[in-house]
């Protein structure tokens, strides 16, 4: 058993929250630069330039890339040979609180979804997975709610074809239109159960936007091409780039069904990871 102290996890999560909110990942930045080269109109180019400049300012000044610093989602992979010394859940929540406070981020979380009340920095939403090995891996995804509000799930018949799935994803992007800060990154979860497909869709956003994977690569490319024909464009003002990436994750499913979930990310797809 490898022992990891909860205090150490707390402090590293705090740092990861600050990094995630102030430093745009290099794959997202590279995809945006590619979009700049693709865009033809002066306005679209100017807006992509503003997005890239915004990332520069945030990094330099330590300011949040976006004022919506999200309802942070934590994806925790615990090696089965790891023993946590202390309370892991508490360490993670305290780490988020500590990082968000130190970064002067936004206290966007209301304690009760119905009565709302005064907002704070936590709780984050935490997903745990047990993996082989003796490492602890955590990814912080501070996704804003402008794009979170555009999430969707559809339970297809098992006889549905690829085209129907593709059309559904494109339709969801079309519905989001200019509202959720395009150009988007689209996470798609296919298979599993209803709630698992939603989790897969969001986890798909953790993968690099530029690195497509084997099995579903063709479908990712097809969907991306279709989406970029929608002419929603940068900040919704038309153009070639409505999305800079489509990432799909799949899982086995039931003979009676075919769940498909979509998680849309704004252009400020922020994430940071730690491995202990």
């Amino acid at each position: 058993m490898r022992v990891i102290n909860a205090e150490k996890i707390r402090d590293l999560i705090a740092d990861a929250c600050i990094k995630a909110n102030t430093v745009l990942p290099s794959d997202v930045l590279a995809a945006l630069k590619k979009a700049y080269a693709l865009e033809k109109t002066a306005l679209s180019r100017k807006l992509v330039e503003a997005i890239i400049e915004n990332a520069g300012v945030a990094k330099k000044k330590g300011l949040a890339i976006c004022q919506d610093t999200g309802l942070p989602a934590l994806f925790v992979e615990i090696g089965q040979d790891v023993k946590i010394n202390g309370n892991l859940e508490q360490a993670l929540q305290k780490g988020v609180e500590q990082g968000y406070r130190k970064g002067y981020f936004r206290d966007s979380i209301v304690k009760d979804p119905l009565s709302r009340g005064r907002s704070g920095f936590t709780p984050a939403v935490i997903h745990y997975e047990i993996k082989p090995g003796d490492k602890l891996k955590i990814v912080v995804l501070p996704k804003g709610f402008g794009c979170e509000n555009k999430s969707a799930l559809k339970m297809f018949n098992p006889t549905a074809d690829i085209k129907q799935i593709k059309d559904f994803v494109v339709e969801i992007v079309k519905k989001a239109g200019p509202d959720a800060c395009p150009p988007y990154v689209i996470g798609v979860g296919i298979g599993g159960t209803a709630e698992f497909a939603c989790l897969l869709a969001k986890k798909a956003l953790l993968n690099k936007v530029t690195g497509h994977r084997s099995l579903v690569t063709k479908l990712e490319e097809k969907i991306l091409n279709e989406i970029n024909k929608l002419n929603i464009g940068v900040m919704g003002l038309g153009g070639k780039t409505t999305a800079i990436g489509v990432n799909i994750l799949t899982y086995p499913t039931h003979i009676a069904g075919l769940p498909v979930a979509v998680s849309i990310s704004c252009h400020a797809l922020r994430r940071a990871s730690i491995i202990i």
Partner: protein
Amino acid sequence: MIRITTPLKKEEIVKLKAGEEVFLSGIIYTARDQAHKKSIPFDLEGVVIYYCAPTRTMPGQIIGACGPTTSRRMDNFTPSLLKAGLSGMIGKGNRSKEVVDAIKKQKAVYFLAYAGCGALINKYVKNKKLIAYPELGPEAIYALEVKDFPLIVAIDSQGRNIYKNGV
């Protein structure tokens, strides 16, 4: 480039066309979901509302990241505010038909700020003062003094909409 100053005057508003880029200076007021649900507690004549809830402010700074939020969520509240004299709104994304009609009827204007660029927009804010609802935290109403805040006219006083070209 067009330069405009708050409070907005009708004769200036009617000159603005969807798609034009403007630099806005003067006082604007942050207000979003909860402030709209409660009520905007001041005279709205000539006023511009900014759909924004900034991050916390670092020591020595005026404001944190302060970009626009999705305007559509305020659509149900907007026609009555326009009727009460509200002149302009700043946000991101499209509006409902009811809001477009009310903008046209009341000769108002809806601007876009650069979406997802809250760190960049920080530099256009020269002053910040709490006006109402401190209990709403980031969603409180603040008066922001802005200088040359770059905006795009999205829906003009004749009801022309920038998004008709794009979507």
